[in-house]
């Protein structure tokens, strides 16, 4: 059994490495495809041919593509993502600076998504084709059809513009900027630790709309998958056996069917989290939320290729990591696959 575990862990890391290589190969190719000449970006338009050639060789651009890629990969692994044209700082340090804001959004959204989505999915499956099912299915359907950036704008218009229930864009009112010391980078935690309750409330009222919107998409996906899994389980014979043993219908639903979906559900939750990192790109743009997504789009508008690609590699790595890890967890925890 332990040998199987070691095998699986090994396979996981191998997949991770291989996929990371694939991702970086693509970002590398993209960086070579760009219309911006990296040499000109350094020496300027007016440089002589000699200087151009020297810089060309210094940048290693005369070497075969594979060698260049290897150099690129080595730099990435050592943490050198290049320098941002916009901020003049190393891209990696920029990324680490902005990541907590996105992490905050994605984590809160996923937690809400799970707390609402899972019971909703179970309810819909247990009351299949009755009105709770229809309500949940419609909500999920909308969640698959609404553009996230549009919902953000409409939400701002309605809840901020018309009702004034939440704050506008950004993470904090400008007046509160830079007051709280950034320990974790997560404003809610940092302000609570410092006892700055006014800032906490302000941060919360800025957070609630973007997190709520992302939570909706998370919940739509989770509820739909939960419903699907539960319907499969509720059609199984062991549910009938449970009813014969004396379980009520809901007893069979929660104590028999639900434990059987927990493992695939964890995978689903992980995937939802990963996809929220992507959804955050557009949401942060709408809400001027200073996270990873906004960093990438701002870099995009300023043709800061290092920053765009660096951000892509980071998001990609986390995305891939979460995906593969969930696959791995699934294989580990399914009791049917546990023994050799």
């Amino acid at each position, binding site marked *: 059994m332990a040998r199987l575990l070691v095998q699986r862990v090994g396979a996981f890391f191998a997949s991770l490495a291989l996929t990371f290589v694939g991702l970086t190969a693509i970002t590398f190719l993209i960086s070579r495809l760009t219309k911006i000449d990296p040499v000109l970006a350094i020496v300027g338009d007016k440089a002589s041919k000699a200087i151009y050639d020297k810089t060309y060789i210094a940048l290693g651009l005369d070497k075969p593509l594979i060698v260049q890629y290897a150099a690129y990969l080595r730099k990435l692994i050592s943490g050198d993502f290049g320098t941002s044209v916009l901020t003049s700082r190393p891209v990696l340090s920029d990324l680490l600076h902005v990541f907590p804001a996105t992490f905050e959004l994605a984590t809160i959204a996923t937690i809400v998504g799970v707390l609402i989505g899972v019971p909703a999915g179970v309810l819909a499956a247990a009351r299949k084709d009755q009105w709770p099912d229809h309500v949940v299915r419609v909500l999920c359907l909308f969640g698959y059809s609404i553009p996230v950036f549009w919902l953000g704008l409409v939400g701002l218009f309605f809840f901020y513009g018309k009702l004034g229930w939440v704050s506008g864009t950004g993470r904090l009112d400008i007046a509160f900027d830079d007051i709280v010391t950034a320990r974790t980078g997560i404003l809610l935690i940092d302000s609570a630790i410092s006892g700055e309750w006014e800032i906490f409330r302000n941060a919360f009222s800025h957070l609630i709309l973007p997190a709520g919107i992302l939570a909706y998409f998370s919940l739509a996906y989770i509820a739909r998958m939960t419903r699907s899994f539960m319907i499969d389980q509720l059609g199984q014979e062991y549910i009938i056996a449970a009813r014969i*043993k004396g379980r009520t219908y809901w007893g069979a639903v929660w104590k028999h069917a639900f434990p059987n979906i927990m493992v695939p559900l964890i995978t689903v939750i992980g995937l939802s989290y990963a996809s929220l990192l992507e959804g955050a790109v557009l949401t942060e743009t709408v809400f001027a939320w200073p996270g990873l997504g906004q960093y990438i789009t701002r870099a995009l508008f300023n043709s800061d290729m290092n920053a765009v690609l660096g951000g892509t590699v980071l998001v990609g790595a986390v995305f891939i990591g979460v995906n593969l890890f969930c696959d791995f967890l699934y294989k580990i925890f399914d009791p049917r696959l546990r023994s050799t």
Partner: protein
Amino acid sequence: MSETLLDVQDLNVAFPSRAGITQAVRHVSFTLGRERLGVVGESGSGKSTMGRALLGLTPKPGIVTARKMSFDGQDLLACSEADWQRLRGRRMSMVMQDPKYSLNPVVRIGHQIDETSRLHLGANAAEAQRRTLAMLEAVQIRDPDRVYNLYPHELSGGMGQRAMIAMMLVAEPDILIADEPTSALDVTVQNDVLRILDDLVRERGMGLIFISHNLTIVSSFCDRILVMYGGKIVEECKATELHHAKHPYTRALIAAAPSLAEAREELATVMRDPAWLT
């Protein structure tokens, strides 16, 4: 003369669908005492549907109607869900075909059997475990303590089915409906399981409805036999008097059963007469 435990008169089960209404069970009537009743039929004959209907487990959108359906004097047609819960497992139980599917894959065997005691007999954990281990011994599982902690996929087919029997008999019901209990098992294991079922039913003086497609097993195991075809009962006789069977379908089934005793050139097949469906 055993008392009548189950009295069924004119039972019908219909499944409405977009293509019309399918009558899965038609005008079925029989009684069951503390005896073994075999129900033989091919797939689609309605035998399993009838079994489920007797426990109120007909899946939606099925509709169950009958002139009378009562167990030990209690009218089953008037049962609420709460009434059914009290009956199922405690007084009327069912063993299903394939333990791969009828046991919960993520719960240990012992806990699954405990559950019956805890729900029906109000036993606490220790008491339930005691009963479970005793029951596992009764179904001749040799190492009950080890098996108690196993998961269903770690059991062989025969053991799984024995665990299923333990699970359904631990609350000591009066009637057991066995729906194809040996059909998913290897032939060598079938006899073991049948023997265990035989002992338990006899010891506890239970009524048994044994549903199967295999006439040979049913005729050797049961006291009386019902033959079903197209949702109806086409023959009812004692097992010992099977060779006197009148309906052509039954005679065809008997003829089709291979026998080591006589030499035959070909195996007989059943020629169906559409008239049997009316």
